[in-house]
């Protein structure tokens, strides 16, 4: 029969995690766009999928939605693999990958009517409601070809909400929005999450992720370099401190020589470093014995931005080292990979 890619029974998916990816790999000739990615999005998560441009986020999402075939590995949505069970796997799933795309020669309402027809299950009855939510009702009769980028993003959200999703996959939803639009988008995502929708938010906007997400995966050069709770990541990042003394240059020298003090640098506030609390105590004693007065010592938790750059720049350095050394399994440097459009 036309229209089915598999004849097997489709599992109900009840109890299965919204997203579960195991060992996802996508190669384009010699280029590894996605390299053994595992993802675990749990019910109720607002899950941030973070990475620099070209890190493989969009390619991973495309594989999860069955738009492209993985070279290796599997991705399941509520326990169902889109490549094996086709559209059944997308029940309860909505969103967009890269920018949402619509038929420019149709109005927003006609676009939504078309998508509602492809959704079935009474989606057409929700068109007015979702247009109201994204505040496009007054422009619903206008052709999408004349819409701004921000309006298309909002229409993308409306199209996703038509499906009454249990899992919402949003790929850079705030890209191209003005500050007010970004704020509104964040509020909407938070509201949808509070309504019980699991959200998988792909982004390179760190403040957005820090504000919205409780769990994150950080991907760089096609590999997941961290997956887990955002709070755990920040704890793992270690406590940071700011220090101002009567002689910052000598204090920096001594801090760098002190056991347990890491990443000591001079900055506009004096010094910055990371350390366990006990090692901070030892440092203050050492400085005091050396006749250096402490003017201010302020603890700071690492921000997501700090951690992100620490993880991703560390990965880049390791990749470059591996490539130069010709070590077995070494990947191409990131600059080379970014030369290829991998979505």
């Amino acid at each position: 029969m036309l229209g089915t890619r598999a004849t097997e029974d489709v599992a109900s998916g009840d109890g299965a995690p919204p997203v579960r990816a195991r060992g996802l790999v996508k190669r384009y000739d010699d280029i590894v766009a996605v390299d053994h990615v595992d993802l675990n999005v749990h019910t109720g998560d607002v899950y941030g999928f973070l990475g620099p441009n070209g890190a493989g986020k969009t390619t991973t999402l495309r594989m999860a939605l069955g738009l492209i075939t993985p070279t290796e590995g599997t991705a399941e949505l509520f326990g169902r693999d889109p490549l094996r069970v086709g559209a059944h796997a997308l029940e309860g799933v909505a969103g967009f990958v890269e920018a949402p795309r619509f038929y420019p020669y149709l109005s927003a309402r006609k676009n939504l009517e078309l998508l509602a027809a492809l959704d079935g299950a009474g989606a057409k009855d929700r068109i007015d409601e979702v247009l109201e939510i994204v505040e496009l009702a007054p422009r619903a009769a206008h052709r999408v070809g004349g819409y701004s980028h921000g309006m298309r993003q909002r229409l993308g959200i409306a199209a996703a909400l038509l499906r009454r999703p249990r899992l919402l996959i949003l790929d850079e939803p705030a890209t191209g929005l003005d500050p007010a639009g970004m704020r509104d988008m964040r509020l909407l995502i938070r509201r949808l999450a509070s309504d019980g929708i699991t959200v998988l938010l792909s982004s390179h906007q760190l403040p957005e992720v820090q504000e919205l997400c409780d769990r994150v995966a950080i991907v760089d050069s096609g590999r997941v370099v961290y997956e887990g709770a955002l709070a755990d990541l920040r704890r793992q990042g270690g406590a940071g401190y700011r220090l101002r003394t009567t002689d910052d240059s000598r204090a920096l020298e001594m801090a760098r020589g002190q056991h347990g003090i890491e990443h000591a640098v001079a900055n506009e506030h004096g010094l910055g470093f990371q350390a366990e609390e006990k090692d901070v105590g030892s440092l203050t004693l050492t400085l005091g014995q050396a006749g250096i007065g402490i003017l201010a010592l302020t603890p700071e938790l690492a921000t997501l931005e700090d951690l992100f750059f620490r993880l991703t720049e560390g990965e880049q350095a390791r990749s470059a080292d591996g490539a130069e050394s010709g070590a077995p399994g070494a990947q191409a440097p990131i600059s080379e990979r970014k030369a290829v459009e991998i979505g």
Partner: protein
Amino acid sequence: MSSATASPAVAARAVTHPRRPTTMTIWRWELRKLVAQKRTYLGLAIGIVFPLIFVLAQSLRQHHGHGGGDNIFFSEVTQSGLATPVLTLLLESAFLLPLAAALVAGDIVATEDGNGTLKTILTRSVDRGQVFAAKVLAAMTYATIVVFLSAATATIAGISAWGFKHVVTFSGSVVSAPKGLLLVFAANACYLIPLLAVVSIGVLLSTATRNSAAAVVGTLAVTLLLALVTVIPGLEGAQPYLLTTEYNNWHGLLRTPTDWAPIWHSLWVCALYTGPALAAAYLVFLRRDVAGG
């Protein structure tokens, strides 16, 4: 955006096996998309304008006292309005109607790929096979509409100019006007057999190349190549198996007695083009990575 107004009605709730759309639903939307696109009307215009130009030219020719041509219908054109749709089909069948069919068939998948809307529809509750079937059906529907629109225009214009009268067949026998009208309809229906094979080739190129212009031009290039093969000395033996030869399959209907052999022959010859083209296009569509847009 009014995040504050996000009602619980769109909140998460269990969705278990909702009623899914049928292929016919998708096909209807494919037709609605065609209706909304300007390029659709180019093919329809070909089907309308050519018969009108033909009738106008023959009326002027008649006015200046010129006689008929080599073809029996050319000599009969001013004797019965029903000769007009036969002649316009004869003239349009080799290039204009395949061009009109290729305009949509070559575009129907490639444009969606280029615009990124393929990913939009493939992440809804429809399978790729359904989308493919709907697109093939829509392209074939369009080709059918163009052919019958052209025939209807030619018939109405011809009858308006020269009346609804009996018509002479290729065999020289005379058939009544109502039967002549039926034969015109049947001839156009028979012509659809090779034209739908052209549509299939267009869909294959549209799916495989992901480039609308390349697919449209490629489809025409294939038909022109097949037409050229017929005039290459030494390849006469291939002629009965060429798609372009089948454009004339309907001639047997306009003989007395009716010669059905060319129609049966065209059915299986065209199936040799249609089947593999659609099968290949289906497999490409099913397995392709949707990475555009």
